[in-house]
């Protein structure tokens, strides 16, 4: 008899799982709204400016005492996959952070709700580059969050040791410093005068922008890849020559593997192009782990252009905040975004090494010698084509693969650029 009981219990337990899964149903939709606001932010905020997040949430709660705010931190590599699944099941967050190259696809698919700019703080003075990444067909679909510009981070002491006292103001001088550094230190096989991971396509495209080239242009509603134009090919040739003579970084990884600030902290790098936040990362005990005194030997300057008096345009990367179209309480979501993008909040975000979303806060880091050059560099910037499918070009690694092919000499600049160009044309014109 005992055996029967065991079996019966086992079966009942098994079935109860099945039944409880099968039933349940339709409570979810109504329950989730009103009492809880779900916000998806990237882990950058968790590690970089948690006080801004906490401040926004408490300001929001003062306004809506009955509402809970749950911040759910996401990873860049997987957050859109999770978002797609949540869209399919009508289970979206109320606020989502998106990279400014990710938004266009979702705007075109009408996955985000239209917003009114005048409802948000500083909307008159938003950075135009970010605002553009939130605008589609004349409507606004997200709110600029923050931006980042890149500048050259360099070793003052090494520059001085080869007789260079001030940051180079022209591209020719930039090359001259590099040559001197390689001559003096290049016998060390780990040394790079200028450290450029091969798949850091943002730098390659900065050269293209500097020579008047573009990644793609729109003509009569059709996109055309334009990396095969003479300007772009010239730029990429200059880029290749520079990287191959100055850099000993891997040609098959991007700027996050490893972060250039790590070899930089090890003293084997003369300079590299990085974001503002990479400066502190040099000292991070889990990162570069350089001693505090190392800061005295560091400096930053905007990358000079081959055209005298200008800087090489920097990629204006950044993040936006959007409200998914299926969000159940758009008004609450809007209120939280307002709190999070207030001048106060943006000041904290800027001080963490970013550029605030508004030109009125452009001087926040002016007195910080480490961060001021980054704001200066943002004067000349470029952005990816605003085609709805742009992010697919990134996701298919078209530009990374092109850079690797060029830098490893696996194919000629013209051939690699031509191939990338036709891939870009194909992807951007695919109907979605």
């Amino acid at each position, binding site marked *: *008899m005992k*055996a*029967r009981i*065991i*079996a019966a219990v*086992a*079966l009942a*337990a*098994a079935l109860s*799982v*099945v039944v*409880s*899964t*099968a*039933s*349940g*149903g*339709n*409570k*979810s939709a109504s329950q989730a709204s009103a009492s809880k606001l*779900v916000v998806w932010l*990237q*882990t*950058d905020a*968790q*590690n*970089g400016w948690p006080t801004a997040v906490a401040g926004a949430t408490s300001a929001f709660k003062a306004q809506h005492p009955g509402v809970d705010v*749950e911040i*759910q*931190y996401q*990873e*860049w590599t*997987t957050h859109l*996959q*999770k978002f*797609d*699944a*949540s869209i*399919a*099941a*009508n*289970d979206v*967050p109320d606020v989502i952070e998106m990279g400014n190259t990710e938004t266009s696809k979702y705007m075109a698919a009408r996955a985000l709700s239209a917003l009114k700019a005048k409802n948000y703080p500083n909307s008159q003075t938003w950075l135009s580059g970010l605002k553009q990444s939130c605008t589609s067909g004349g409507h606004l679909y997200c709110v600029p969050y923050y931006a980042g510009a890149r500048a050259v981070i360099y070793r003052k002491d090494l520059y001085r040791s080869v007789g260079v006292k001030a940051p180079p103001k022209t591209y020719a001088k930039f090359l001259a410093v590099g040559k001197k550094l390689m001559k003096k230190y290049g016998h060390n096989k*780990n040394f790079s005068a200028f450290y450029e991971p091969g798949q850091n396509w943002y730098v390659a495209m900065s050269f293209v922008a500097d020579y008047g080239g573009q990644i793609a242009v729109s003509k009569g509603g059709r996109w055309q890849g334009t990396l095969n134009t003479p300007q772009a090919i010239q730029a990429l040739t200059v880029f290749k020559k520079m990287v191959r003579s100055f850099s000993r970084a891997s040609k098959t990884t991007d700027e*996050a593997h*490893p*972060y250039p600030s*790590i*070899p930089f*902290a*090890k003293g084997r790098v003369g300079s590299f192009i990085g974001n503002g*936040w990479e400066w502190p*990362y040099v000292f*991070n*005990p*889990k*990162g*570069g*782990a350089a001693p505090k005194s190392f800061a005295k030997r560091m400096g930053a300057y905007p990358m000079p252009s081959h055209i005298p008096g200008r800087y090489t345009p920097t990629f204006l990367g950044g993040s936006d905040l959007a409200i998914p179209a299926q969000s159940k309480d758009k008004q609450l979501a809007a209120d939280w975004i307002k709190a999070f993008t207030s001048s106060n909040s943006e000041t904290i975000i800027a001080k963490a090494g970013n550029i605030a979303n508004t030109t009125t806060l452009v001087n926040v880091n002016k007195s910080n010698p480490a961060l001021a050059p980054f704001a200066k560099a943002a004067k000349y910037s470029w952005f990816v084509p605003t085609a709805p499918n742009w992010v697919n070009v990134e996701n298919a690694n078209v530009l990374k693969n092109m850079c690797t092919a060029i830098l490893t000499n696996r194919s000629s600049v013209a051939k690699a650029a031509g191939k990338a160009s036709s891939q870009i044309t194909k992807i951007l014109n695919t109907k979605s």
Partner: protein
Amino acid sequence: MSSPLAGAPLAGVPARARRRRGGRRGRLGWNALGLAVFALIIFPVYWMIATAFKRGSDIFADTPVWFPIHPTLSNFTDAIHRPHFWADVKNSLIIVGCVVALSLVLAFLAALALAKFRFYGRKAFIVLIIGVQMIPLNALIIPIYLVLAKANQVDKLSGVIITYLTFVLPFTVWTLRGFMIGVPRELEEAAQVDGSTRFGAFVRVLLPLIGPGLVATSIFAFIQAWNEFIMAYVLLHSPEKQTLTVWLASFTTNRGTAWGPLMAGATLTALPVVIFFVAIQRKIAFGLTAGAVRG
């Protein structure tokens, strides 16, 4: 045409107490080779643990630091003090515990049917459990999310449990079936003579005999469920409801991979599996034996 051994216990006595040939010198050579293979196999694991105890400057060293000469626990404290560590440990334990227990119960019943009954559709079921393992999980992320959302099981541990159950069951059923077939019919019949029903006889006689099989099977279920990442990441939203592998992924961000804490976290994540192994290790050898041979 079926293999003569399939389902039948192997002939012969267990290898033991038999005089070995070759003598001491041969053995020494084999042992040296064994040691070398051990070093080769274990090195990546050693490197993980060693890195976990290293200071930042020793991790990115010009020449590799083979042994943490300046050992530090800071990577571990850093890892443990990340938000929600203990909650995630608890969640992982709950999920794995339920998956192991439920899969054993369900697989026991199904394996009983496969091993002890001839019935129409048995082959179909076998094809089903082999086939299920062929479907790429990534292709099912969205539809599974859809189904679970309809059943109100998203962001709930139970949703993850039942999903894992689906992927663990085929293998566990298969393995347990192998163990059951190995139990000689005479034993069941003997029990029946004693007056039990056939099912009662199964349970009374089978359960102790396939005990090792249950243990061996649970290892597989444990590892599968403990190490899974993508379904847990997609299905669990709330930070306090996530699992250890999802927690581990938070060490890699756009702003740097924290190698030291990541390796410390990885060591901590692997630890429960090793403890589980050690706890039941005596039964493994025998357990896997039976399961394997009668596969």
